[in-house]
Structures are given as structure tokens and as C-alpha cells.
């Protein structure tokens, strides 16, 4: 009897632990408020330690990073040397193109952020999990950031805020398989939903009109249709491929993100949420290229509500 009790106790403990885990998972999936609060508090509490240790051990972690990424660094080195050689020969032409580009940009008013207020933030960590593509930034609710706000970098969309604590926020990157964004192709009127496919992979686009033609190189911008957590006109990616499917009049379209999501150092969080934003009627993009959000979406200061779950509509 004593033996059977003894052997039953570990199983009972395991059962309790399993039930506790399942309860916590259920609470989290149902959006119970205490869990995000607990996570936020834990991150705020631990962030000074993380920062201090990170600063102190940077040389060591950089060394290991270099050691473990040696092959990639070697490839990068060769690629950069080739690019440098090519760049030198094109320098004069580039200066001319730069000036032309500047003039055209001014002309088109391509400042996609428009008058929407932004909060600049430093990327302090990459993905905390091996199963989710996220970054952590050093600004949180204390800087006015709310869950659901869009995040951009130099050339376009990076993702959106999925977790906020007082001093940090977690951004779900565009390329995460659970991320999707409604896009519009300029200058055509084709619209669709771009979905992440994982690290280093292009986004795939499900077109609303499958037969719509989308040439390679076309820029896709956020469509900003009703319910979208993104303002209209933020560049998302360039069409990398648009292959016709055999037997049907539709295309498999992939997008290469305009922002290099593996090299992010600083990002801007748009102080914007969908709740109070007026919804512009979908209109054909201007013939000149990328749509100009500043003229279609007035800046809207965020409301405290969250725009919703992990997957966004177009």
C-alpha cells in the first residue's frame, strides 16, 4: 500500500502541473487581463537587469555571435565587397539618380507617415521565442504606445505592437506566419491580403480579384480599408514574383518587404489606431506610383482600445 501511494504521488503532482498549465493556457487564449499585466510587470521589473547585463556582456555575446555566424559573415563580406566594387563604378550615376529621386519624392509627397505622430524606439532584442518573429523595443505605454499600433522603419512597414509594458513593447514582424496586412498595388487598383511565411521568406498575397495583373517590381502599400489596423499608404513590399497558376486565371504573388527586417536598429511607432480613424473610400492609386496617405488619412491620435487579435483583415 505504502509503495503504491509513493508511486502515485509523482503522478498526482504531474496531473496538478498539467491542469495548472492548461488553466493558464486557457486563460491566456481567452484574453484574461491578469496575464498580459503579469507579463508587462515582469518585463518592466527585469528590463534594468537585462539592459545592465546586455551592456556588460556585449563583447562576449558579439564574439559568440560572430563565431556562430562565421559562414554567414564570410558570405556577407564577399557580397559586400562585390557591392562596393559595383557601387564605386556607379557612384556618379547614383548621385544623379539620388537627386532625381529626391525631386520626384518631393513631388509625390511620399512621406508615408504624413502627420501621424510617431515615437522613435531602439530595438533592444530579437525574437524571444523560436516560434514567433518579433522584436522588442525600448518604449512602452509610458511613451504613449498601445497594443495594435503600426510600426515602421525608414522605407515602410515593419509590423505592429502586440504586447506593451511600461517601458518595452513587442512588435510582431510582417513576416511572422500569423501576421497579415491588407495591401493595394500602385498604380493598379488590385487589392489583396499579404501574409507572412516565416523568417527570410517573402510575403504571399491573396488577391481579392485573382485575375488581376500585378507586374514584378510593383510597390504594395497598406490598403487601409475598414477594420485594418494600419493607416493607408504605408509601403509594405515590392512584388518579387507574380506567376500564373496553371489552368486558372489567377496569379501567385509574392512580396519582398521594403524594410530589411533582419537588420532593424531603430523603428518608429505610429501613434495611430483604427478605432477612431476615418475610413477613406478605396480609390484608385495615383498614376505616379505609391499612394500618398497624408492626403487620404488625417492623423488620428490613438484611442485606448486595442485593434484586435493576431490576424488583421485587409
Amino acid at each position, binding site marked *: 500500500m505504502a509503495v503504491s501511494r509513493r508511486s502515485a*504521488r*509523482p503522478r498526482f*503532482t*504531474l496531473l496538478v*502541473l*498539467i491542469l*495548472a*498549465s*492548461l*488553466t*493558464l*493556457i486557457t*486563460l*491566456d*487564449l481567452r484574453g484574461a487581463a491578469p*496575464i498580459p499585466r*503579469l*507579463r508587462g510587470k*515582469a*518585463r518592466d521589473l*527585469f528590463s534594468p*537587469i*537585462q539592459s*545592465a*547585463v*546586455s551592456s556588460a*556582456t556585449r563583447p562576449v*555575446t558579439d564574439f*559568440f*555571435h560572430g563565431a*556562430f*555566424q562565421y559562414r554567414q559573415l564570410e558570405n556577407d563580406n564577399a557580397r559586400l565587397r562585390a557591392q562596393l566594387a559595383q557601387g564605386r563604378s556607379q557612384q556618379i550615376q547614383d548621385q544623379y539618380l539620388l537627386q532625381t529621386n529626391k525631386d520626384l519624392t518631393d513631388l509625390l509627397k511620399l512621406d508615408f507617415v504624413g502627420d501621424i505622430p510617431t515615437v522613435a524606439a531602439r530595438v533592444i*532584442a*530579437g*525574437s*524571444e*521565442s*523560436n*516560434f*514567433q518573429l*518579433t522584436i522588442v523595443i525600448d518604449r512602452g505605454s509610458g511613451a504613449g504606445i498601445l497594443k495594435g499600433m503600426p510600426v515602421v522603419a525608414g522605407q515602410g512597414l515593419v509590423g505592429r505592437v*502586440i*504586447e506593451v509594458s511600461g517601458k518595452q513593447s*513587442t512588435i*510582431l514582424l510582417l513576416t511572422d*506566419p*500569423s501576421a497579415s496586412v491588407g495591401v493595394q498595388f500602385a498604380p493598379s487598383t488590385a487589392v489583396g491580403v499579404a501574409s507572412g*511565411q*516565416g*523568417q527570410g521568406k517573402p510575403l504571399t498575397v491573396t488577391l481579392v480579384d485573382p485575375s488581376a495583373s500585378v507586374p514584378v517590381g510593383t510597390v504594395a502599400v497598406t490598403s487601409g480599408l475598414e477594420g485594418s489596423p494600419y493607416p493607408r499608404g504605408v509601403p509594405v513590399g515590392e512584388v518579387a514574383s507574380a506567376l500564373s497558376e496553371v489552368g486558372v486565371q489567377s496569379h501567385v504573388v509574392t512580396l519582398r518587404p521594403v524594410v530589411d527586417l533582419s537588420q532593424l536598429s531603430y523603428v518608429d511607432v505610429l501613434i495611430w489606431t483604427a478605432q477612431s480613424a476615418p475610413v477613406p473610400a478605396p480609390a484608385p492609386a495615383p498614376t505616379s506610383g505609391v499612394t500618398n496617405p497624408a492626403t487620404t488619412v488625417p492623423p488620428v491620435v490613438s484611442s485606448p482600445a486595442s485593434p484586435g487579435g493576431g490576424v488583421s483583415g485587409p
Partner: protein
Amino acid sequence: MNPEAHWLRAALVIGVLFCIHEALLRGLRIDGVRPDILLGAGIVAAVVGGPELGALVAFVLALLGDLFVNTPFGLSALVACLVAFVAGSIRFSLGTHTRWAVPILTVVGSITGVVLWALIGTVLGLPSLLHPHLIVVAAVVAAVNLAISPANAVAMRWVFAPGERSYAG
């Protein structure tokens, strides 16, 4: 040693491991994969301290780790306590001191843990977890946990004080 001392030592080791994982190794990526030393430590705790205590330690370690990721809270804890319990039970069933128990069970347990996490995550609706890169993730996590398993074993033997409530040889 009285039971309180066991738990105090366990709390200290858990705190140190957690700081190493979340602060020191936070930025470390091997082939794009973040090592999961909390899982490895939980397995070693079960191999050294037995399935019951090991599952408890693994549960607490993984639950702390869950605070810093955005995947379902408790998922890693569920996987860790299951894997640790099975690893501890296997070790216990082997009976006498087996030199290779810690490294072998650490590697097998780490791989199982990563795959089980992806399977349960998929059941819970997390997208695209079962892809070829999962093999790389499991391999890296297992390799790192194998590398640090001797240190984990020393720490866990200190926690569970062999000869009392430990199965360690």
C-alpha cells in the same frame, strides 16, 4: 538537510538560470535559433532529483520563460513538466548510477520538448510551427543543452543533495 534548504537552493538555482537565459543569452542566436537552457535545466533536474521534483522545477523555470514570450502562457511549462517527468521516470527505472543518463536524456528530452511544443502549439492554433526549420531548432536547443548539462547536473545535485531525495548516483 531540511526540506526548506532544498527549496531555498532550488529557488537560487532557478533564479540564476533564469537570469542567464533572459539576460546573458538573450541576444544569442545560433543559426537563427535561440537556445532554451530552461528546458535543459528542467530535464537535468528530473534526471538528478527524480520525476516529481524535476517536473516541478521544470514547470517553474518554463513558466518564468513564458512571461517573456508572446506564445500562450503556460505552453512551455506544460511541455517542460511533461518532458522532465518522463525523463526522470526513465532515469529512475534505470535504477543504479548510469553515467550517460544526463547527456542522453538531455538530448532526447530537448528534441522531444521542441517537437512537442510545436505539436501542441499547432493544436492550439499557432500557425506554421511544423516546418523543416523545426529540425534546426531542435538540434540547436539539444546541442546547447547537452553542452551545459554537466554544469546543470552539478547545480541540481547541489539542490537535491544526493542521498536524500535524489536519484542521482
